[in-house]
């Protein structure tokens, strides 16, 4: 068990209002750690701090440290960090260009590929890994905006795989999808776990129990409990956790 990410005493503030309170948690390599909790519990802020997306907002302040492979991420180059810690958003956001260019956009910018044959291979491989290749192989050069919601979300996954990150952050990746697309995305998550470390923020408690190895429960910006998923769902230590997962509040 190697720790991929260590978070030490992380607190986050928006306009001086504390949204995440002295959080200390670790993420093990090649696991799926899911984060559950009601709205306003700081889940998304937590995720967005890990690849420093929240640093883009002016009113955001933070204290504490986050280590990725024992390197402090707050001293890293932001673009480089985001290549290593990639993020999938709640709504699928295809960039306004063709399917092919959506995938090749970031690797090109980062200088991972520059020859056309290499690009073709990369596009095909990423789409296959996101189990999208068969759906779109005949229309790689049509607009990505014309795909269905589930396809768009898988395209976004393919786009992330193309830059070969170390950690993938899923921010409620299925909130806008139908059950079948959700199943497909979950399936690919289990597949991806072999190569990547995954953090999953979800409002769907069942989803957390289905896919994750460990689950963390957040409430009002505080980490209440983190444990092996089966353990947390069957015999939670805290009363609040039990209330939440059995649907008594939240």
């Amino acid at each position, binding site marked *: 068990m190697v720790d991929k990410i260590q978070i030490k005493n992380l607190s986050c503030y928006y306009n001086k209002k504390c949204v995440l309170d002295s959080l200390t948690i670790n993420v093990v390599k090649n696991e799926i750690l899911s984060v559950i909790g009601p709205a306003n519990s700081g889940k998304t802020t937590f995720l967005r701090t890990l690849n420093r*997306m929240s640093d883009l907002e002016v009113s955001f302040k933070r204290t504490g440290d986050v280590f990725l492979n024992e390197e402090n991420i707050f001293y890293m180059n932001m673009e480089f960090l985001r290549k290593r810690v990639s993020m999938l*958003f709640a709504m699928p956001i295809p960039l*306004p260009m063709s399917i092919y260019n959506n995938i090749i956009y970031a690797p090109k910018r980062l200088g991972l590929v520059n020859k056309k044959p290499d690009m073709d291979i990369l596009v095909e491989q990423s789409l296959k890994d996101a189990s999208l290749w068969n759906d779109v192989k005949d229309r790689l050069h049509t607009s990505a905006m014309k795909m269905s919601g589930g396809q768009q979300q898988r395209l976004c996954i393919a786009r992330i795989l193309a830059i070969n990150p170390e950690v993938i952050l899923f921010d409620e990746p299925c909130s806008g999808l139908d059950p079948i697309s959700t199943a497909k995305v979950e399936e690919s998550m289990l597949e991806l776990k072999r190569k990547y470390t995954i953090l999953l923020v979800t409002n769907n408690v069942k989803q957390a129990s289905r896919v994750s190895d460990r689950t963390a429960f957040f409430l009002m910006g505080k980490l209440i409990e983190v444990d092996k998923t089966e353990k947390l769902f069957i015999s939670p230590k805290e009363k609040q956790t039990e209330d939440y997962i059995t649907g008594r509040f939240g």
Partner: protein
Amino acid sequence: MRKFLDYIIETVIFICGMLSIIFVVLIFSFLLKEGLSFFKDFSFIKFITNQFWYPNSKVPSFGILPLICGSVLVTLGACLIAVPIGVMSALFISEIAPKGVRDILKSLVELMAAIPSVVIGFVGMVTIVPLVKNIFNLPTGLSAFSGSIMLGFMAVPTIVTISEDAIRSVPWQYKEGALALGATNWQTLRRIVLKAAMPGIIAAIMLGIGRVIGETMAVMMITGNAAHVPHSIFDPVRTMTSTIATEMGETVRGGMHYKSLFAIGLVLFLITFIVNFIADLFLGKNKNL
């Protein structure tokens, strides 16, 4: 009773909508009637290729090639100045400037759009014209170049305000998506934001060009008003618009000269139509992506 009120309001809106169409059609047909009757006596090819514009000499010659050249030269020059400045300032205002600066800049730019063209022409005449004359050591500063600069200034506010709206309306998620993939801020701006805002930016540029082509007063004051084919951008030129404006007062209604001015209007209309058409083609292409 409420139905009746509904009916009245609908009718009023319908009439207003129809009126604007009718005005356009009326103006166009009047232009067409006066302009086309000119071509009965003078061939169209000769009209646009002849190099000499002597409408009042004993053997009048109606060649608007110098006027077309003047208009095109001044417009091109103005675009070269206004498009980069306009688009860049729009980017700066909407994406880079801190909020306080943005509000001030935006209202200043909008204020700039409200300056009447006579004032711009006048200011240009006493500042830019002597400056150009001294810097480039020309016999006169009243040239296409000075005109381009002033018209560029006039087009900038149009381009800035409209492209700024277009850039601002690019969904924040696009930017976030690109940034989350490790693109730098500038890469995101260039490849994602500019690209997504492109239809709006092109529309802005076209409106800017429209303002430049149609501008009369400022060009008349600054470009020197010499109807000959220019050899360089530092030559004095005369545009189609200023020709119509200066000569309309001296013509005899219904005469050859009078009709030729309408014919110029027709050509001007044709040019703007082509510009709009090309812009539409561009926009259509962008939508299909």
